[in-house]
C-alpha cells in the first residue's frame, strides 16, 4: 500500500497547473496518452525496469475501485474501463479551465462530484473568493474533499495549487486550505502557489497577495512559492539549449502556461517521490516539515529541481559519473533554477534547514561529498549547519537516469515578504480599490492591517535569525 495524496486545484491558475500535472503523472507511470505535447517527452532507456515499483505506487494519485484489476495500466481506455479516478478536487468559479478538463482526453478520470463551478468569478477580489464564495460553497467543497478522502486508506497529504494574485485562487484557495486544516488538521498540507510578477496585469494583486499570504502562513504545512517570471525565464533558457530539443518541442506544442506549469509539476512529482517509491533513505512527506520548519510560521521553502528539462535527448556519457552528480547538485543550488526570483544563498542570508531528495542510482560517497560542498558554500546559523535531510529514492524520473530536488529554508525568503508589504503599502497609501473589499460581507478593514502585521512579523523573524548571536547559555555539564 503506497502513501496517497489528494490534489486540490483552485482557480484558473491552480487548474492550469492541474492540467499540466495529470498528463505528466500518467507519463511517469507509463500510461499511453493522446496529448500531443506529452508525446515529445521520451522516457529514458532503462525506465521500464522500474515497472513494478511504478505500478505499485499507482494508487498514490489514483483511486482504483476494484482491487482485483491490479494497478498496471497502459492506456487511458484501460483506466476508463476500470473506472480509475484521479484523487483530485477541482474548484473554480469560472468554467473555462475546469471545463476544458471535462472535454479533454482525461475527462473520465475526474469526478463531476468533485468540481465546484459557478459563474461569474471573483472579480480579482480576495474578499469575494474568501468570504462570498468561501461561505456559499463551504459545504460543497467540504463534501468534495470528504469524498476524495474517503477513497484513501493511507492519506499522507494534500497538494494544493493556486495563484495568490487573483480572486478565486487567492481567496477561495486559501478558504479551501482553511477547510482542509479544520477537517484534517493532522494531514499535512503542501501548497504550491504562484506569485504574480511585479508588472501585474491585476491591479488589486498586492491586496490579494497580502491577504492570501497571511492565510498560507496560518494554515499551510509547507509553502512552495513560484513566480511567473522565474518560470518564464527557465522555459526560455530551456528552449535555447541545443540538447533540449525534445523539451523545446514539448513547450512549443503546449497550451498557454502548460510549459511553465510543468516546472511546478516536476517539483511536485519529485517532492512526493520518496513517499511513493522505495529507496535506501526513504522520505515520508510528514518528515519534511520536521526537517525544514525550525520555527513556527517560517514554512516558506525554496525549491528547485535539476535537471529542469523533463527529458534528456539521449543517454549522456556523463550520466552517473562524479562530474554529472556534482553538476546536478550545483545546478539545484543555482539561483536560475529557483522557482522564485530570489537567491536563497545570497550574501547575508542564512540557511535554517535544507533537504536534498535524490532520484536514481547513487552512492553515499557522492552524496556525502556534495553535502559537504553545500555546507562550505552556504552560510548557516550557529546551529543549522547539520540541519540537513537526505532522501534517496531508487526510481528516477521518466526522462532522466537521475535527478535531484533541493529544498531550502533560507532567511533570503524575507525578500519575498518585504516585497509583499512594499507593494501593498504603495497601493494602500492611495486607498485605491479599498471600497471593493469593504463592500464584501464579513471583510473588515482590520483584515488588511492584521495581514500586514503578521507578514511583517514573519519578515522580522527572519531578520532576527540573521542577527542572532551564538548562544552563551552553558551546557548542563556535570562536574
Amino acid at each position, binding site marked *: *500500500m*503506497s502513501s496517497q495524496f489528494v490534489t486540490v486545484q483552485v482557480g484558473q491558475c491552480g487548474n492550469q497547473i492541474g492540467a499540466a500535472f495529470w498528463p505528466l503523472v500518467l507519463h511517469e507511470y507509463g500510461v499511453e496518452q493522446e496529448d500531443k505535447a506529452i508525446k515529445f517527452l521520451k522516457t529514458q532507456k532503462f525506465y521500464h525496469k522500474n515497472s513494478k515499483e511504478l505500478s505499485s505506487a499507482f494508487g498514490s494519485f489514483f483511486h482504483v475501485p476494484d482491487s482485483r484489476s491490479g494497478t498496471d495500466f497502459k492506456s487511458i481506455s484501460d483506466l476508463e474501463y476500470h473506472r480509475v479516478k484521479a484523487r483530485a478536487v477541482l474548484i473554480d468559479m469560472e468554467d473555462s479551465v475546469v471545463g476544458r478538463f471535462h472535454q479533454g482526453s482525461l475527462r473520465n478520470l475526474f469526478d463531476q462530484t468533485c468540481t465546484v463551478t459557478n459563474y461569474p468569478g471573483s472579480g480579482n477580489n480576495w474578499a469575494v473568493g474568501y468570504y462570498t464564495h468561501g461561505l456559499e460553497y463551504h459545504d460543497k467543497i467540504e463534501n468534495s474533499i470528504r469524498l476524495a478522502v474517503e477513497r484513501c486508506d493511507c492519506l499522507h497529504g494534500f497538494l494544493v495549487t493556486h495563484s495568490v494574485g487573483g480572486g478565486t485562487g487567492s481567496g477561495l484557495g486559501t478558504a479551501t486550505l482553511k477547510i482542509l486544516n479544520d477537517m484534517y488538521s493532522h494531514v499535512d498540507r503542501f501548497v504550491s502557489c504562484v506569485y504574480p510578477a511585479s508588472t501585474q496585469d491585476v491591479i488589486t494583486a498586492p491586496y490579494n497577495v497580502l491577504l492570501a499570504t497571511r492565510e498560507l502562513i496560518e494554515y499551510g504545512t509547507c509553502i512552495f512559492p513560484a513566480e511567473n517570471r522565474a518560470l518564464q525565464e527557465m522555459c526560455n533558457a530551456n528552449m535555447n539549449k541545443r540538447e533540449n530539443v525534445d523539451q523545446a518541442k514539448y513547450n512549443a506544442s503546449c497550451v498557454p502556461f502548460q510549459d511553465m506549469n510543468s516546472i511546478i509539476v516536476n517539483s511536485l512529482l519529485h517532492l512526493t517521490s520518496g513517499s511513493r517509491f522505495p529507496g535506501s533513505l*526513504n522520505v515520508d512527506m510528514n518528515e519534511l*516539515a520536521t526537517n525544514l520548519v525550525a520555527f513556527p510560521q517560517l514554512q516558506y521553502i525554496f525549491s528547485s529541481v535539476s535537471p529542469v528539462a523533463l527529458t534528456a535527448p539521449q543517454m549522456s556519457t556523463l550520466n552517473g559519473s562524479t562530474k554529472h552528480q556534482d553538476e546536478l547538485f550545483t545546478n539545484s543550488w543555482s539561483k536560475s533554477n529557483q522557482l522564485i526570483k530570489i537567491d536563497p544563498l545570497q550574501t547575508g542570508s542564512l540557511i535554517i534547514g535544507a533537504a536534498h531528495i535524490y532520484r536514481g542510482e547513487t552512492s553515499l560517497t557522492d552524496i556525502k561529498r556534495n553535502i559537504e560542498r553545500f555546507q562550505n558554500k552556504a552560510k548557516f546559523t550557529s546551529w543549522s549547519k547539520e540541519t540537513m535531510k537526505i532522501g534517496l529514492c531508487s526510481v528516477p524520473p521518466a526522462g532522466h537516469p537521475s535527478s535531484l530536488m533541493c529544498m531550502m529554508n533560507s532567511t533570503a525568503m524575507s525578500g519575498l515578504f518585504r516585497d509583499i508589504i512594499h507593494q501593498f503599502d504603495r497601493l494602500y497609501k492611495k486607498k485605491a480599490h479599498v471600497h471593493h473589499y469593504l463592500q464584501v460581507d464579513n471583510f473588515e478593514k482590520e483584515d488588511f492591517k492584521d495581514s500586514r502585521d503578521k507578514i511583517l512579523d514573519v519578515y522580522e523573524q527572519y531578520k532576527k535569525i540573521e542577527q542572532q548571536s551564538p548562544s552563551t547559555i552553558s551546557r548542563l555539564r556535570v562536574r
Partner: protein
Amino acid sequence: MLTLQFGQCGNQLGHSLFSQISADLDAKDTGISKQSNSAYTEQSFEKWFTGISKDGKRLARSVLVDTEHKVVNKICSESSGRWVYRSKNLVCQSGGGSANNWAYGSMIKGPQLKTDILDITRREIERTDSFNGILLLLSSAGGTGSGVGSYAVDLIRDEFPNKSIISCIVLPFSSGEVGVQNYNTLLTLAKFNETADLNFIFQNEQIHSICTNVLKNTETRLIDINDVISKKLCAVFQPVSNIWCNANYITSTVASHPSYKMATIKSTPYVPPMIKQYESSQSWKSYVEHLKETLRVSALSDPETKAPSKVSSARSSYSYWKSVSNILISRGKVMENDAVPYDQLQSKELYVDWIAPNDQLTVLNQDRRLINQDKFLALVSNNSQIHCTLEEIVEKAWNTYTHSAFLHQYKKFGLEENDFLEAFAKVENVIKDYESL
C-alpha cells in the same frame, strides 16, 4: 536471541544480519571437522532461527517494526537466500511514518503499536526453550527507530525484567541525514542508557570510512555499511568454543558497572573483494596489534579505518583510552606458532584501576571460520573514547536547543522543554562518567 528491528535502518540492518548469519551457516570453507561444524551450525541456528518454513527456508526469530510499508515489504520480498522472516512477525501500520520526530514515534506511534509488539514478542519467546537475550536494532536519526524503539525498550523491560536487552544504535553521519538528528539521538541515548543492559554504538561516518578506505569501495551504499555492522555483530554473537558464552554473559562481562553501558565493536581485517584471493591473512599478532592501536588516544585518523600494517609498530609510549572491560573474540584456527597474543591487551595502562585484573579482558575463540574468512578478530570494548562521540552530539543538540529551533515540532506531540532538559542531564552524566575514567 530474539531480534527486534525498528524503522528503516533497523530493518535493513536486520536483513543484512540474518543474510550474513545464513551465509555463515552455509559456508563451506570452515577450517574444522564436519562434526564440529555441525555442532556450530546447530547452535547458531537455534540462536537466531525458530525453524524451517514449508519451502525449506530458515525462519528468522525476529520482529519487524515500522511505521510504513515500503521498507519492510521490500526486505520481506527480498529474502532470496535460504532464510525468510515470518510474515506474521510484521508490526506495521499505514497512515504515515514517524515524521523523523522522536516525540511522534515514542508518544503517538509507539502506543499504537504496543499490543502487536507485545503479542508477537511473547509468542516468539514462548516458542523458545532456552532464551536469554533480546537484540534491538535501530538508528537514532529518524523517528521510528529512535522513537518507537525508545518506547519499545521500556515496554520490553517491563514485560521481561530478567532478560538481557542489548541494543545496537546506529548514529547518523555528522554532516547530517536528518535535520533534527541530534535531538533524536540525544533522546534515544538518554532512554537506552537508562533501560537497556548494553548498548553497542555504531557510527555511519566511521563505518563508511572502513568501506571506502579499507574495503576500497568507492561507491559505498547504505547496504555496504549495514554489511560491515552485521559482520561485527556476527563476530560477537555467533557461537564460540566457550559454550557458556551467551547474551547474558556478554552483557554482564562488558557492562559490569551500571554507569558504563556503552560499547563499541572494533574488528579486523576487512579485505577488499578484489584482492581477497591473492592476499593471505596475516598473523594474529598483527591483528591484535592493529586493534590495540584503535584504543590509542590520538588526534590522527581512526586506525580501524586503515588496513592493519604488516610490520609491528615501534614501541613508544602511547596513552590509551581507559577501558572498563574488553572482550577479544578470534574466529579462525589458532596454531602454536601463530598464537593470539592477547596479553598485549592486558597491559595495565588500558584499564581503570578499580577493575580486578581478571575482569579486564575476556578472551574467546572459535576455530571455525566466520563466513569463509581465514581469520577474523573482534574486540568488544567499553572504554572512555565514547565520551567524544556523545560530546559532539550533545554540543550540537544543546546549541540548537538554546535557540529554540524545532522545539515546536516536539511540543506538538507532548514533549516539553523539561523533557529535553532531563535527557540532556542524563547524557551529560554519561559523558562525565566516561570522561573521568
